[in-house]
């Protein structure tokens, strides 16, 4: 049987002999399609949101796995899912477009020629989005499969690419949806429904695609198990503690720093301000935001040494790098909350939240950040301790 032979141009559906429902899209292909839709949707909704980076990373990695699987399936899988079945050369695509414009395009049982190219484009762009995402996770955050292989600068470059392509994907999806609608109208069939149940009208005697149920179930179960394992931390963390999906390098600590600086507030890790800021703060200990600290000289020495060794300039962590980069070279901020990076990260929090009893002030990092004490401030390690809507 030659599935590539379309109905003859001009042959009206009404003239055809009786049709029958034929299984075209096998279960694995259909599951793949909708899981990829879900993965991209969740990835899109969780974009640029530090709190949900673990969710974003999971669905991005899921998308990557799905695409790699689809490539394998496209090379050796179900009949209509094979690339050889729906990828056509430019001439055929051109003719198909011409046919569409004239109103007499042939109908293809599997993907039509443009649809075939759209599939490749969607897969290719999505693939680069996923890989660049892993590069961002590695370079910018220091996590994931590629960590250790990407520098922070490379991570930022990958982030720019990742963002541009994500918007490109949105555009492609829009084109894809439009194409599905057009094709459905032109050939009077419901292609969305077909991708759900897999059946399409065909000439009697058209052999259906094999069901490949086993592969489909294996795919689904693998995805569900992966999700359960990945997110199990949330269920296994004891009550009262916050689950930290990302745990970075342990930053240096100093008992004098922790006890002296932690006397009245969170013992802000020195990596949160540049060395010149700490030097200024320690030089003016007699007026530390209205208090005279009256620390003894040898205590001050220990503090100064620790601060100088691990200040933001040393770029020992993501917050250190980004806080340092955001401060203008001539400025010497004395408050972490005055740095441009801090402001940018927290400006979405309504002002009234800072006054709530559970939070208290902008300087109370530990109210929301589970790893404030260590100075790591990893993504997905923060939660507003209150439901703001209840405190209107």
């Amino acid at each position, binding site marked *: 049987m030659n599935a590539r032979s379309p109905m003859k141009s001009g042959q009206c559906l009404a003239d055809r002999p009786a049709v029958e429902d034929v299984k075209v899209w096998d279960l694995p292909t259909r599951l793949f399609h909708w899981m990829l839709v879900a993965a991209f949707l969740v990835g899109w909704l969780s974009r640029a949101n530090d709190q949900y980076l673990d969710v974003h990373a999971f669905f991005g990695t899921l998308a990557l796995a799905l695409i790699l699987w689809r490539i394998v399936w496209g090379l050796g899988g179900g009949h209509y899912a094979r690339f050889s079945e729906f990828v056509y050369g430019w001439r055929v695509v051109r003719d198909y477009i011409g046919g569409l414009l004239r109103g007499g395009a042939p109908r293809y049982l599997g993907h039509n020629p443009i649809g075939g190219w759209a599939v490749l484009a969607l897969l290719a762009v999505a693939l680069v989005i996923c890989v660049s995402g892993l590069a961002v996770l590695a370079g910018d955050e220091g996590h994931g499969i590629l960590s250790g292989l990407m520098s922070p600068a490379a991570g930022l470059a990958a982030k720019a690419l990742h963002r541009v392509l994500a918007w490109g994907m949105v555009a492609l999806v829009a084109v894809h949806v439009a194409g599905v609608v057009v094709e459905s109208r032109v050939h009077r069939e419901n292609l969305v429904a077909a991708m759900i149940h897999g059946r399409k009208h065909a000439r009697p005697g058209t052999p259906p695609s094999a069901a490949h149920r086993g592969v489909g179930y294996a795919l689904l179960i693998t995805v569900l198990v992966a999700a359960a394992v990945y997110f199990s931390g949330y269920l296994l963390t004891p009550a009262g503690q916050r689950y930290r999906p990302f745990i970075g390098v342990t930053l240096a600590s100093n008992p004098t720093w922790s006890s002296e600086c*932690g*006397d*009245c*507030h*969170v013992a802000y890790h020195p990596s949160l301000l540049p060395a010149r800021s700490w030097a200024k703060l320690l030089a003016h200990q007699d007026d530390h935001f*209205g*208090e*005279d*600290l*009256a*620390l003894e000289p040898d205590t001050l020495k220990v503090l100064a040494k620790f601060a100088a060794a691990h200040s933001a300039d040393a770029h020992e962590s993501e917050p250190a790098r980004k806080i340092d980069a955001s401060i203008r070279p001539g400025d010497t901020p004395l408050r972490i909350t005055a740095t441009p990076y801090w402001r940018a990260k927290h400006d979405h929090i309504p002002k009234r939240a800072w006054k709530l009893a559970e*939070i*208290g*002030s902008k*300087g*109370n990092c530990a*109210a929301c950040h589970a790893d404030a004490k260590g100075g790591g401030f990893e993504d997905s390690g923060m939660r507003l301790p209150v439901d703001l809507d209840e405190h209107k």
Partner: protein
Amino acid sequence: MKKTLSCVVVLLGLGLGASAVRAAAVDDLLAAYTKAGAGPFDAAAGKKLFTEVHKAKRKPIERRCVMCHTTNLRATGKHFRTGKRIKPMAPSVNPRRFTKVRKFKKWLRRNCKWTIGRLCTAQEKGDLLTFLRAQ
């Protein structure tokens, strides 16, 4: 039996010893204040100093020790600005209070300056310590 008995004796001794050390730090401080010309010390005066309002030039204009340490010294306090929890002042609940002279000196200096606007006199320090150690 003999072993248990000797263990109990040792522990008892240590406990008594510890409270002796505790008492020593406070007594050392009071002796130093007396030497500086202060005394006799009055817990009621200490309590008054601890709870009354002191006026300052910068905000907050009205300052009181209990703003952070709360009026119930057995309870956990809270830094009024940062929200940091402060362990109870009362030695009956927090036995580590007033065991280190250095610490007491540091805090009294810092907090007298902030709350009252100046260093506390030896008399005031003695009154405060007499009041606080009994909580």
